[in-house]
């Protein structure tokens, strides 16, 4: 077991190395969300938004940090894994004694590490340049929320990778799912009084819960340290509310467990070109065979 843990560590380092040598991925994960922060602060000014009870940056920094974390895990992990499969790298790994779970743990661990960097960078820039405050009381709940969220989005990334045929489709599929959901999940716009169906839509998907569980931790006017089932949204009238992560974590966990289960079932290690050729042949000749 000690040896296996060392292998996990080594695989994480190995994937990190590859990540840093793929500048596009590094840019989209780390720099791109920062550009939004700079842009929003410039566009809206950094005054307090009354309906939210916090400054523009105090609201956006954690929301965009979560967005960066989601793209590090969901988008990147899915794309990188699918491309590695196309290139036969996953198949090659399967032919070695490296247990599959260790290889996947290496990829997931590296993705979560990059998510950690993205969040740290975003919050640091917020603190240094935009007067973002950290609330000590909620810090642990924020860290837990981050870890759960990152793990869940990694599972979702692997789930999508197990469905799509090749790496070319990965960025399209992940962006076409993540971006629209981000718009109903308080990432880019804090929606006030949205139509009920939009709100419900946001509540179904895990991103809004990730943003709420992590982001509300940085709301100085909210009470509590997060460890209860459901909280109270900030109200302009009372000037306060309550921070709670229970329900948010639960919704995310349901998504994560389902995604992880399906991904383990359907994940493929061989490049899919051969399989599709095989399937086509099988179909035309109406014969069954394994592959």
């Amino acid at each position, binding site marked *: 077991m000690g040896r296996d843990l060392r292998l996990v560590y080594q695989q994480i380092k190995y994937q990190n190395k590859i990540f840093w040598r793929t500048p596009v991925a590094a840019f989209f994960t780390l720099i791109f969300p920062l550009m939004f922060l700079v842009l929003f602060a410039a566009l809206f000014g950094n005054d307090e938004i009354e309906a939210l009870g916090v400054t523009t940056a105090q609201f956006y920094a954690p929301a965009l940090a979560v967005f960066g974390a989601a793209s590090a895990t969901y988008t990147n992990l899915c794309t990188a894994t699918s491309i590695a499969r196309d290139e036969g790298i996953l198949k090659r790994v399967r*032919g070695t004694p490296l247990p599959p779970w260790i290889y996947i743990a290496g990829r997931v661990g590296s993705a979560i590490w990059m998510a950690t960097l993205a969040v740290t960078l975003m919050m640091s820039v917020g603190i240094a340049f935009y007067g973002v405050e950290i609330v000590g009381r909620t810090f642990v709940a924020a860290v837990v929320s981050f870890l759960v969220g990152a793990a869940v989005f990694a599972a979702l990334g692997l789930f999508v990778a197990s469905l799509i045929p090749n790496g070319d489709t990965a960025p399209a599929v992940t962006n076409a799912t993540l971006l629209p959901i981000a718009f109903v999940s308080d990432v880019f716009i804090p929606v006030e009084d949205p139509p009920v169906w939009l709100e419900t839509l946001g509540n179904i998907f895990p991103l809004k819960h990730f943003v709420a569980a992590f982001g509300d931790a940085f709301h100085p006017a909210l009470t509590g340290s997060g460890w209860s089932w459901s909280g109270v949204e900030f109200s302009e009238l009372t000037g306060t509310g309550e921070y709670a992560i229970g329900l948010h974590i639960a919704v995310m966990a349901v998504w994560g467990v389902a995604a992880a289960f399906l991904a383990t079932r359907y994940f493929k290690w061989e490049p899919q070109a051969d399989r599709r050729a095989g399937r086509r042949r099988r179909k035309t000749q109406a014969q069954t065979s394994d592959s």
Partner: protein
Amino acid sequence: MAAITVRGLAKHYGELRAVDGIDLTVEEGEVFALLGPNGAGKTTSVEIMEGHRIRTRGQVDVLGFDPATGGRPYRERIGIVLQQTALERELKVEEAIHTYAAIYPRSRDVDEVIGIVGLEEKRTVRIKTLSGGQQRRLELALGIIGDPDLIFLDEPTTGFDPSARRQAWGLIDNLRSLGKTILLTTHYMDEAQHLADRVAVIARGRIVEEGTPHSIGGRHEGEATVRFSLGNTDPEELPEMARAGLDPTTEVITILTHTPTALLRTLTAWAIDRGIELDHLRVERPSLEDVYLRLTKDSEDG
């Protein structure tokens, strides 16, 4: 003891019988080559033995494991070079080898392996900058880094320049002398001739012939060919036995015989009597390639 025992192995893709009932035994310490045209079923068979593909039917025993279920203990004892090169492009050569070395319980020395495949000068460059043949050599390095008892090499030297191929042969000879078992596929007859203790020719998913490179297809028993060029000699003056063998356009005389020694004596005596030098005089046995082409004649693109 046999390292590989395969009985009645079949793999069907729908109607296509990619492998159609193969029996194969490879002894421990043996170098065994699979020959056959494109699409004959070599890769499919080898990948079943590697544990990459699930067979439709048949028994496969490799080092006492069923490859389909052998898992980690099995894979710790084998090395694989796939036909398709698959490398992490952004890594450096030595990084890739180090990472793979850590996966195996007893791995070979990284520097030594880099030396063996002749990549010393490339050890710190990115894999994506390697030439095709150099990438193949790196694949070979990754295949042997775990010090495996059995090595599968699917067209290991395709894309190698002649000197790199010689070097790879040296490497394989060296592995043989360490007692390793090697199953390789190749399209190069000289490679099979040089390396293999035994070869099998496979076509349309079946083994059509099996034996030593020297004796396969009755190579050692068949007729020998004696050839020489006509030169300035008048065809009318040729001895009886040679006249029929003259090709008028190329002016080459070809004689098939079961007794080349006796024939040569008659022929050379005749030539010496007349003071003639027989140009390009040769005695040939059918080459491995001749035998291979005959065996696979009807199964092009099997």
